């Protein structure tokens, strides 16, 4: 098909010439190729997380992500403490601003779990 507009490069013209259904098929094929390049465990984890996000309403997704990050941090701290690092040492490394934030979080978590 000749270019509709001579100022539009062929790369773009080729894409414009494709139907939305063809583009969707291309995108899906590339998405599948990226997923296929993962290990089965990575693929399962990715799909599980996609499913979890999709189950969360749009307006709750920022909270979902923050919760996930909080859980990752908690897992890391727990692994270090389980490995013998005293919890007191963790807290002693914080400066005043960081300590205030951690104190706020601890209080907020206790309050939120109590509601």
């Amino acid at each position: 098909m000749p270019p509709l507009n001579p100022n539009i490069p062929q790369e773009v013209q080729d894409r414009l010439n494709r139907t939305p259904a063809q583009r969707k098929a291309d995108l899906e094929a590339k998405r599948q190729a990226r997923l296929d390049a993962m290990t089965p465990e990575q693929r399962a984890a990715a799909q599980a997380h996609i499913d979890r996000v999709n189950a969360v309403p749009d307006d709750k997704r920022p909270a979902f992500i923050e919760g996930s990050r909080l859980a990752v941090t908690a897992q890391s701290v727990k692994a270090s403490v389980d490995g013998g690092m005293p919890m007191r040492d963790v807290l002693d490394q914080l400066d005043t601003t960081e300590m205030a934030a951690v104190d706020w979080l601890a209080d907020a978590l206790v309050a939120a779990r109590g509601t």
Partner: protein
Amino acid sequence: MAVFTSIQTGSWQSATTWDQGAVPNLSVDDVVIAATHEVTFASGQSATLGSGRLISVLAGGTLRIQGTLSAYNSEVLVLGSLIVEGNYLYIYGAAELTIDPGATLTVTTNFYLASSGTVIIQGQMTLESGSLTDLFSSGFLTLEVGGTVQIYGTCYVEFSSQATIRDDFSIENGGYLSIYDNGTVFTIEDSGASFAYGTFFMSFGSLCEVFGYLGIASTGLLYVMSGALMNVYKDIRVGGKMTGGGKIVMFRREGRILDFNDNPVFVLDRAYGFSKALVA
């Protein structure tokens, strides 16, 4: 359903900006930003590029996103400049953003990639100070040979997302890269080079595969938290701080931990030698 091509610089929401004499409906229309035109998607405006649709920014053209633009299962192709300076740009659901050679993506606010959303960088991506870029829930970033990424702000790669680095990827002074959670993989391929003048942070469960160059400058911090794993197949260069409680595994007998000027940090043979499972 039509192709809307810009005929002058102006607002996206102005009919006089487009050859069709109307404002494009991204559910059913394709859009081309022509060379020399700067089109602004205004603050307070929100739209989603529908499944199978296409936005193209031609070389010399600029699209400024000052509102909220999402792309679902669709394509955004940039041969010119894409500037994200409003609420956010969100690429998701198999959607693909391609930054062609010579093209630029500049983020000063928020850029999200999720649910198999992908960005392919063959040109330049700059994440400015104060910006937030978040790849989550299987977001993909591929930096191709010839492309560059510079992070001055914050970039998360998390929750089963993947970043593949095939050229220069730098975390600048004050910049912050955070790799989070199981299933998240940051791969520096043979042709790739990652320079950290800021913070390179790996959290519990994350994996970094280093086949190419990784350097932590004197201003940089490599933080490998408990439960995180970095596999190194050549050398790594650490001129700054390295801390955490995770593992760095050297997979080759001749692999070295060097300073930023290529001098060995460890000179004892046992520190760089006998096992493919040296844990630093």
